[in-house]
């Protein structure tokens, strides 16, 4: 082994704690990169493959009742590759031993031949036999939640009649990867089911012979999505078409997409942070090493070593750190990434998983990590190369400090504190980078933990400010308003508020959107309408109140006149003023007074659903009655839904916090520990002299650790600001028409982020403190630095 290489190994060993601290920061960067990119690619590929193999449609549209021949018309639209019509309806389920009513989306299966689009993947059993109208295939999640297998039975209220259904198969579907029940924020497998029945059975039940209520379209490559959507809309308009939409507005796809986007964002935000910090730390440690070895470098040059050889020696030091980081990070990232992919796979019930962990991920990881390390080391190595041998043999000039305050000022500040202040000001760039580095760890925490605050805020808004009802019943079709008094008489119903929802097309200038208009009576108490300042709004007798998201898309403000076209019943176009902008986080919504909706539809007072306040003690009795009510198409249980949501959240939150706290602590520890160690190496002599003068260990430690305390404290506000910025960017990236996330960061989250970082700083300070305590007083005094 060359003696230079032996020196390299000894240096690495001597500086092992620092080297490991830096390598861990790099490892965190590599791990997050490998994990996020790998999991993202794998899941994306899994989804793509799933979609492709099971022919997930590109366009979806629902109608009230469209004649079957329309399918041929749709197929003739240029760019359409395949069309499949179906009947999709919701039904209440009655499951033995499960008092809470569940809701199912019932989907028809073709009588002859296989499904053309949105094919199911049969896990067990077989498809329903058209000859037996009671045979059903259910989704796996639901079957698992109830312990169902082929042969088991449950009841469903199908178009008013209670029917016993026999499970013949258990399946998965690309259409319901993320299966959300009405009003749910998280899939609740026990309360929401997908059931596939033979078309014949469902046709008969819903009296839809020769008609369909849903159509799916697969496009040819290169076809225009918007054009086809428009032409489908035109064809369906007369049959209660509710507006065709593409995958991006298909619920399951959109939610899954948002989740994958988050992974992608993680791959873009976290690794650069870690690699930046690592580069900075490498710069610090190598500059110090070179400064200490100036004489040796000069000597080697004098002995005839080439500058390049010596430069390479130091670059190898950098490369070794990067290598350790890449190996640890690569292994950890792969392991965690596979775990995460499996976790997602389970959660979404993918029938298979494609692991796409190409060599290129590692190639990229190695490339950017070594690149960052080399950049970090470049300055120090360059100074080595440039150092003329003669100069190298002299000790560097002592650092020049500046007086930043006059004597009068300083009278009351102790000299040790002046040392701290001057030292910071003497190396402002290094102090600045240290502050920046630590602040990034605060930012990492803040930018990840804030999502819980935002979610809590949305929960509070949705379930405690706006939709405060315990349950919502939706009827299979519009009912006269008199039905409300029937509902009020049900056991356990404390209050009932009518609601009428109709589909409309709203237009302002060139922009138009298909949206539901929710009609509510004035002064509702359960389900309230709140404006963007979170104040309850009384909807005026006439006028249109879009949600803020919709208002933004249309570009309307209060007072603007919009055009509303009805999409159900008789077609009408009316102009209406915008009377309020409504706060909303989920979907594109709009509101009107229920009377105004009735007038718009030119029908008498009708309702499509009812919001309920329930007496919990009588809930079972109520549920039992609801399960037998023919007119109820679905039931949403907001409080149950919230429970489920909270439960899932609680499971995730502690994992998330510990992962991100760990990552942040790696940064904070790496920066603080390295700063302290390098300072100790630079100032050990100074500190030892003070010990000789009679300063206690505590007083001497303060000079060094006090500086770090100051820098750490200074990094907090900066970290909050950066974290807020990253959170803001994250939130912007998550905005979609389906949902928007409010940017909310609680004071508590700032506190937690700060405390974690302060904790990591304190730990590194304690470790360094032990070294300060062990300073060899005599040894330091004997030698000139």
């Amino acid at each position, binding site marked *: 082994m060359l003696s230079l290489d032996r020196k390299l190994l000894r240096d690495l060993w001597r500086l092992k704690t620092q080297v490991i601290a830096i390598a861990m920061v790099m490892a965190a960067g590599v791990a997050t990169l490998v994990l996020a990119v790998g999991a993202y690619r794998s899941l994306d590929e899994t989804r793509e493959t799933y979609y492709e193999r099971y022919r997930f449609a590109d366009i979806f549209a629902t109608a009230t009742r469209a004649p079957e021949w329309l399918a041929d018309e749709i197929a003739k639209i240029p760019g359409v590759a395949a069309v499949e019509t179906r009947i999709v309806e919701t039904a209440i389920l009655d499951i033995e031993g499960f008092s809470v009513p569940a809701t199912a989306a019932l989907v028809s299966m073709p009588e002859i031949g296989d499904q053309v689009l949105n094919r199911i993947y049969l896990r067990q059993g077989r498809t329903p036999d058209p000859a037996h109208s009671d045979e059903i295939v259910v989704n796996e999640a639901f079957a698992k939640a109830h312990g169902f297998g082929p042969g088991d039975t449950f009841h469903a209220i199908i178009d008013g009649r209670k029917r016993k259904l026999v499970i013949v198969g258990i399946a998965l579907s690309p259409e319901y990867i993320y299966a959300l029940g009405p009003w749910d924020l998280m899939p609740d497998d026990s309360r929401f089911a997908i059931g596939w029945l033979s078309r014949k059975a469902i046709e008969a039940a819903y009296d839809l012979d020769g008609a369909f209520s849903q159509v799916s379209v697969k496009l040819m490559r290169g076809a225009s999505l918007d054009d086809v959507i428009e032409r489908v809309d035109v064809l369906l308009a007369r049959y209660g078409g509710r507006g065709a939409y593409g995958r991006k507005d298909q619920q399951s796809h959109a939610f899954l997409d948002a989740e994958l986007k988050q992974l992608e964002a993680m791959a873009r935000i976290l690794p650069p942070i870690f690699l930046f910090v690592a580069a900075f730390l490498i710069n610090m440690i190598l500059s110090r090493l070179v400064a200490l070895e100036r004489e040796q470098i000069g000597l080697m040059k004098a002995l005839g070593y080439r500058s390049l050889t010596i430069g390479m020696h130091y670059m190898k030091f950098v490369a070794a750190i990067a290598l350790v980081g890449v190996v640890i990070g690569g292994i950890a990232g792969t392991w965690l990434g596979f775990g995460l992919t499996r976790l997602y796979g389970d959660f979404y019930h993918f029938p298979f998983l494609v692991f796409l962990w190409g060599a290129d991920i590692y190639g990229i990881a190695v490339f950017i990590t070594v690149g960052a390390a080399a950049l970090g080391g470049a300055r120090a190595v360059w100074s080595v190369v440039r150092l003329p041998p003669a100069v190298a043999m002299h000790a560097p000039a002592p650092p*020049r400090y500046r007086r930043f305050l006059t004597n009068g000022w300083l009278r009351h500040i102790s000299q*040790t504190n*002046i*040392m701290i202040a001057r030292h910071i000001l003497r190396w402002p760039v290094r102090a600045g980078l240290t502050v920046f580095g630590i602040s990034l760890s605060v930012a990492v925490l803040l930018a990840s933990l804030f999502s819980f605050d935002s979610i809590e805020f949305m929960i509070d808004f949705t379930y405690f400010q706006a939709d405060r009802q315990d349950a919502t019943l939706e009827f299979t079709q519009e009912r006269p308003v008199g039905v409300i008094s029937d509902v009020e008489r049900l056991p356990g119903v404390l209050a009932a508020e009518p609601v009428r929802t109709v589909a409309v097309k709203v237009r302002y200038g060139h922009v138009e959107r298909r949206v539901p208009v929710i009609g509510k009576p004035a002064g509702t108490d359960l389900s309230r309408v709140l404006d963007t300042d979170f104040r309850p709004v009384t909807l005026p007798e006439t006028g249109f109140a879009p949600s803020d998201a919709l208002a933004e898309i249309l570009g309307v403000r209060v007072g603007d006149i919009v055009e509303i076209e009805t999409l159900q019943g008789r077609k009408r176009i009316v102009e209406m003023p915008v009377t309020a902008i409504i706060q909303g986080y989920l979907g594109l919504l709009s509101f009107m007074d229920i009377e105004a909706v009735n007038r718009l539809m030119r029908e008498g007072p009708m309702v499509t659903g009812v919001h309920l306040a329930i007496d919990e003690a009588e809930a079972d009795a109520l549920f039992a009655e609801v399960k037998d009510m023919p007119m109820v198409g679905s039931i949403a249980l907001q409080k149950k839904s919230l429970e489920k949501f909270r439960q899932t959240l609680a499971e995730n939150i502690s994992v998330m916090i510990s992962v991100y706290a760990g990552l942040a602590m790696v940064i904070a520890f790496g920066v603080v520990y390295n700063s302290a160690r390098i300072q100790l190496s630079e100032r050990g002599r100074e500190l030892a*002299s003070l010990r000789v003068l*009679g300063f206690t260990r505590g*007083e001497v430690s303060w000079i060094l650790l006090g500086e770090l305390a100051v820098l750490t404290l200074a990094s907090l506000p900066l970290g909050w600001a950066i974290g807020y910025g990253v959170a803001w960017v994250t939130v912007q990236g998550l905005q979609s028409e389906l949902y928007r996330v409010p940017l909310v960061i609680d004071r508590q989250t700032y506190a937690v982020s700060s405390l974690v970082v302060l904790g990591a700083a304190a730990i590194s300070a304690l470790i360094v403190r032990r070294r300060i305590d062990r300073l060899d007083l005599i040894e330091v005094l004997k030698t000139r630095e």
Partner: protein
Amino acid sequence: MAEPVFSVDDLTKVYRTGEVEVHALRGVDLDIREGEFLVLLGPSGSGKSTLLNILGGLDHATAGSVTFRGTELTTFDERALTLYRRENVGFVFQFYNLVPSLTARENVALVTEIAVNPMRPEEALEMVGLSDRLDHFPAQLSGGEQQRVAIARAIAKRPEVLFCDEPTGALDSKTGVRVLEALVAVNADLGTTTAVITHNVAIGDIAHRVVHFADGKVARIDVNETRRPASEITW
């Protein structure tokens, strides 16, 4: 005669570095008297620094006893030694050991802040002839000036004893003399008991007594009937 400030009795110091044992002190006996100016002479490695470090509370003896005004120093723990250094001892070293981020005045203030009955930093700097360099940083001072700041820093707390380990070792003759003058002046004006290590025989002439070291022991002690002023010394 008054009780000595230090009584050193059969002091031994053994350094153990792995397998090797180095006997730095092999039974030193020495009394240091109140107010005297002592010069320790001897070849390199003879144990002078080791003795001074033990007397100054920087190091522990292996065996033997050292009393400071009747108190046994060898029993002191780390905390007591720190206090002892803080209150009673002033140090001057070969390489000045000033804090580079503090000015001359502030380097002195560093000590006066933690001392019980200090003089003003300006006063201390005046005693070593540096009144016109108060606000200079170490980097802006010559070696001799830096060493005089170190002396001012050592005497500012009015220590009872002043230990100087080769204070002129890094200086040329002319600047070295100015440093010695400062030390003699402090000894005369404040009565600070002073011990100066050197391997420069000429410097012995300015002392009350010269302690010759050899091989970890006191070889002999010379008493100067007449002391030469520092200004007359050259090397």
